[in-house]
């Protein structure tokens, strides 16, 4: 990574069985703080609404000791949305951190790999071209499933197009940009030719939203991302030396081609899970790792902190969108409106120090 504001220093190591890592107290502190903040905002988000519930009662209910009314309001009405925000935020944050690490480029995000643009193109196609009659058939679940298929298909297409005796980060990103450009052009063209009422509907989908999540959707997203995160956490230990370049990593005994392929696939699938649960929420995957990296003062995006930063951003934005704003806006608008300036603030602050 091209980071100039991090001083290299020698750090003590910690060894646990076959795994070893640096002892970085600051990173641990930041990660823990992010986790606490995420949990608090998560509970706050559940408590706020037409039937306000205090923070202590929310926590009690989550721990299974709540009153029956709270139990109903929280578990049946508010939990799915909040949990969807948590899962999508973590998935996008980790996916972004992986993509930026693999490409060694801070501008890279899963958006660049074609998942969001492919999903968007399919969704906009279904909303606009199939028109009124088919729109009735394609209910909301069908739409997100189709969009997910489109996104994953595009992601795999990018991966296979970029494959040439292995995957090279630079080639992958350029191919990803090309394929994304085609998908975006198709989306643009569909929007230009469509009826304006369909356009508004497509546009609302394109922004990403957490509204009206059902438990069934949330469970799928939750289990899929948990499984993926387990894979990532095992493989990621092999990944650290890769920042020194392929040759050094190979010299240290890392099978970098395999590690990179697995992690890349996980990044694609995590982004796909997020798209299926909330639509193509923009920028979280790009902003969260950069924010986490700067808060934790790491040379590369830290995975856990990136996921937490993504979740915090998404849940916090959703909370703001529901409470503070005069008009109801999809969460994607608010994530961008908060995430963009916060990234800029961190950059300026780092430069002023």
């Amino acid at each position, binding site marked *: 990574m091209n980071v100039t504001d991090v001083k290299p220093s020698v750090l003590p190591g910690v060894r646990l069985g076959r795994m070893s890592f640096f002892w970085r107290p600051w990173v641990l502190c930041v990660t823990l703080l992010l986790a606490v903040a995420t949990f608090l905002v998560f509970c706050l988000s559940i408590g706020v609404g037409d039937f306000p519930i205090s923070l202590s009662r929310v926590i009690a209910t989550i721990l299974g000791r709540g009153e029956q009314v709270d139990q109903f309001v929280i578990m049946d009405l508010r939990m799915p949305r909040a949990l969807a925000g948590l899962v999508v935020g973590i998935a996008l944050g980790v996916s972004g951190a992986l993509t930026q690490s693999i490409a060694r480029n801070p501008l890279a995000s899963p958006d660049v790999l074609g998942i969001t643009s492919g999903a968007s193109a399919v969704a906009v196609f279904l909303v606009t071209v199939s028109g009124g009659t088919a729109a009735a058939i394609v209910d909301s679940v069908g739409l997100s499933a189709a969009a997910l298929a489109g996104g994953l298909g595009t992601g795999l297409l990018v991966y296979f197009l970029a494959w040439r005796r292995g995957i090279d980060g630079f080639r992958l990103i*350029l191919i990803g*940009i090309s394929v994304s450009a085609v998908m975006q052009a198709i989306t643009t063209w569909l929007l230009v030719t469509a009826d304006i009422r369909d356009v*508004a509907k497509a546009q609302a989908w394109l922004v990403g939203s957490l509204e009206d999540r059902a438990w069934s959707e949330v469970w799928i997203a939750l289990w899929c991302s948990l499984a993926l995160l387990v894979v990532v956490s095992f493989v990621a230990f092999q990944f650290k030396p890769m920042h020194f370049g392929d040759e050094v990593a190979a010299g240290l005994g890392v099978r970098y081609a395999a590690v990179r392929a697995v992690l890349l696939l996980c990044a694609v699938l995590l982004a796909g899970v997020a798209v299926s649960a909330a639509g193509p929420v923009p920028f979280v995957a790009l902003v969260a790792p950069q924010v986490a990296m700067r808060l934790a003062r790491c040379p590369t995006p830290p995975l856990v902190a990136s996921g937490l930063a993504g979740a915090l951003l998404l849940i916090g934005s959703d909370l703001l969108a529901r409470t503070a704003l005069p008009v109801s806006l999809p969460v994607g*608008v608010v994530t961008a409106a908060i995430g963009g300036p916060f990234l800029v603030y961190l950059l*300026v602050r*780092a430069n002023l120090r």
Partner: protein
Amino acid sequence: MGQTAVVERPAPRGSSKARRRRVVGLGTLLALLVIATVLSLAVGARALSPTEVWHGLFAAPESDQRLTEIRLIVRTVRVPRTVLGIVAGIALGVGGALIQGYTRNPIADTGLLGVNSGASFAVVVAISVFGFGNPFQYVWFAFLGAGIAGVVVFGLASIGRGAGNPLTLALAGQGVTVFLAAMTTAVALSDQQALNALRFWNSGSLNGVGFDVIWPVSAFIAAGLVLALTTLPSLNLLNLGDDVARGLGVNIALSRTVGIASITLLAGAATAACGPIAFLGLMVAHVARYLTGPDYRWLVPYAGLLGAVVLLVCDIVGRLVVRPGELDAGVLVALLGAPFFAVLVWRGKFRKA
């Protein structure tokens, strides 16, 4: 994009063979541009023969009904869009090459400085707040928005220590872009008229802009090109790394300021006139680098000419494929350019910026 910019030695000055090859290439591109220009004048809803084009351009007004009609088509429709195609294509090509040079990031694009999102936001505001419906009115808003966004991004990136650090610039641009895009979406989602205008503006078209817009836009682009030319030698040295450049007597801050000002003028003016045309600058910059090598004194003129040729050709194809309708040039740049670009990427033709 890694810690060390990949530096390649420009061919030695005395190498007359390399020089001749580059001059021949430049001549070929000029010839292609002339051919594209003639085709752009001749092809369309009504195809004209070269003699008819000639008459349309130069013949004095006559009583002949048919010739008067041809004169009208050529002078009021074909000539403006051809001139705009050339001017905007050069601007976006040169801008794309420069931004990749100044950020040392091979996936940087002219939209990165926020000019596209600034222009889009200004257009939406012009429609939604001021009630302007006519593209001629909001061209100036677009230009103002692009300019302000460019200045803000550069201002943010040059605060304090590490002023003009390429990474800071790229990320600040991304942060501002993210924010403005969110604001644009927020306005467009709450105002159907703005949404309607925005989708047409977003597709990027050469059609329907008159000389009353083209002349001022060209003046800004000309100023941008002059600035660009003055920075090319120092840009070459900057790509050897800041320390080396400083040691060789380059005023880094001045060079970066002039370069970014140039990119803002070029991309802002082109975007104001045609709407955001994504991918063009990025693509031609890579192709130009492949053709000339890393010497920016050759790379930038190549990128400019390539940009003009590609944009004109895409505009011409757009007039032919869905007759009697049209596909916008911005859409076709991605649909035609991206697969071609992806093949070149796959064959390993490109080096990092």
